């Protein structure tokens, strides 16, 4: 190809910065400060948004300070025994005052129970929620989808005592059958051992109730993320002769994985903090019990509810300390979950 006539001139006239610097030394200028003058309305809104944003942080901080202040005395006298011991005993001296050094407060059994019930709930709820979300996103006919989404959103806002009552009146009478069934086939697994034949009010029942409570949350989060799967990837899979199932496996699941984990963590947080529903169906026992089928469990929030009404000043402080530990545990679990999500989230996006 012949070069156009202007090509040569263009080259001659070109002055590149590099060519210049050989003749004239270039001094690098100071970096300029880049500013803008916001309008009044913008300043006002900025203030309002800042107040809104910080208020949640302030409230959270105040709660934390309050709990810490109240629980400090008990935590100091118990030390690590507060989270490793399982004894909860209030001793009073002759004058009727609580004797802190003779009393013992330990919530290890409650912590173990909380984690056990919550983990069980997540294990039951996640597969059901993911299937439900996949059905709603990719299979359900339009009218059914609308109805189901409305019902699931309603379920998320249901008062938890109703779930507790369902667990108590409907699930509990049948739990012996299920517990025996699980024990028969999975008894080799330590969690499903059964040393004492007491079936009702077990962590298993609490786990099932909690699972039903968190299914709506995990389902909505999963559905949201599945429906955002980039259409071009979905089409690419179909154009390669994918069936709906193989498309979901190759495109939707990798894309939505981190979102599902995030939803599961939201559910886990709710399950750990749930009070009334667990209180209704769980038998609180001050002894660490890992066997979920036996009717003896623990739960920090339910314990606080149980003890709160009749507690004296010192025991109330101990309950505040328990609340603080639950708060920190939830925080810890959530931050671990966040780390997992950010580690696994990158791929597939």
């Amino acid at each position, binding site marked *: *190809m012949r070069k156009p006539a202007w090509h040569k001139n263009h080259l001659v006239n070109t002055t590149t910065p590099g060519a210049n610097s050989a003749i004239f030394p270039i001094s690098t200028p100071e970096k300029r400060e880049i500013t803008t003058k916001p309008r009044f309305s913008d300043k006002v809104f900025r203030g309002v948004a800042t107040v809104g944003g910080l208020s949640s942080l302030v409230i959270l901080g105040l709660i934390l300070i309050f709990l810490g202040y109240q629980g400090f005395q008990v935590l100091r006298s118990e030390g690590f025994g507060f989270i490793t011991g399982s004894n909860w005993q209030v001793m009073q001296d002759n004058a009727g005052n609580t004797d802190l050094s003779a009393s013992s407060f330990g919530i290890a059994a409650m912590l173990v129970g909380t984690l056990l019930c919550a983990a069980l709930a997540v294990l039951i709820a996640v597969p059901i929620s993911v299937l439900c979300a996949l059905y709603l996103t990719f299979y359900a006919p339009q009218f059914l989808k609308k109805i189901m989404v409305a019902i699931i959103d309603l379920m998320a806002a249901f008062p938890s005592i109703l779930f507790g009552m369902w667990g108590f009146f409907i699930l509990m009478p049948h739990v012996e059958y299920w517990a025996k069934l699980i024990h028969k086939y999975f008894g080799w697994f330590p969690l499903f051992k059964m040393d004492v034949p007491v079936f009702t009010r077990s962590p298993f029942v609490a786990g099932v109730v909690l699972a039903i409570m968190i299914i709506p949350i995990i389902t909505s989060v999963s559905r949201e993320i599945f429906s955002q799967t980039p259409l071009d990837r979905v089409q*690419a899979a179909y*154009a*390669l*002769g994918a069936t709906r199932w193989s498309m979901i496996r*190759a495109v939707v699941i*990798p894309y939505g994985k981190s979102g599902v984990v995030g939803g599961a963590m939201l559910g886990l947080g709710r399950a750990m903090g749930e009070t009334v529903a667990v209180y209704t169906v769980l038998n609180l026992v001050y002894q660490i019990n890992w066997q979920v089928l036996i009717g003896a469990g623990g739960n920090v929030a339910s314990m606080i509810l149980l003890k709160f009404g009749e507690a004296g000043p010192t025991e109330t402080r101990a309950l505040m300390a328990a609340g603080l530990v639950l708060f920190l545990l939830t925080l810890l679990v959530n931050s671990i979950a966040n780390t997992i999500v950010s580690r696994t989230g990158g*791929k*597939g*996006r």
Partner: protein
Amino acid sequence: METKATPSSLSDVANANKARKQPGSGALGVGLEARGIHAWFGDKLVLRDISLDFWSGTVTALIGPSGCGKSTFIRTLNRMHEFIPGAAMAGEVLLNGQDIYEQGTDVTKIRLKVGMVFQKPNPFPSMTIADNVLAGLKLAQLKSENKDDLLEECLERAGLWNEVKDRLSAYGGSLSGGQQQRLCIARSLAVRPEVLLMDEPCSALDPGSTLKIEETIQHLSSSMTIIIVTHNMQQAARVSDYTGFFLSDGGPGELVEVGPTSEIFSRPKDIRTENYVTGRFG
């Protein structure tokens, strides 16, 4: 060769393209036939009565202004059209004489035979380069005797092998846009389609990558039927054997004229085609 930046050079390009083809290397028989295709979105008719034959071993370019239904048309050819809610069609598409819209047809088998490359490169980001190429086998639950050979063959045919052979286990998203698009072509080839539909495959790419993809199309055209939608008339002139011109006057899109590419760009029969290819509108 002298190329002038005038519209008439299109016919030169088309003629040069025609001359380069070996005599007899063209049509091997009808691969895909569209018969009276109409398409709707909801109640709106967007395509009226398109009939076109696509011959094996040829490249057909579909040109026309935006919104004239070219993309909709090629999406009816592998049944991707029906994914859009409210989409409907009439007419028939015959693949080796068999209507692909016949009741009881397994649509996944149709899409294996009629592959598609999209406007925006869309490799699966969760998969490696190698997995991307072989994704079709997994998605369609096909078995392959020798995956390594197939991988190399497909990447070779898509003109990407030399650039990626040392990093097959890197993720598909790490490639440049043009490489990603060739990866998508390789991915389509792995399931051995008879027809390849390309919906503006170069519109998101730089000129260098475009050239590579055009070379790839030239290589592939000897063994399969290729249908390419393009807004770039130079591209249509460079790569295609036949060109169809689509136009919509506000209503449904129609096929104005179809013929050998060199004739469409030098002696179009319809005045509207002439106006379009000479750059008077569009």
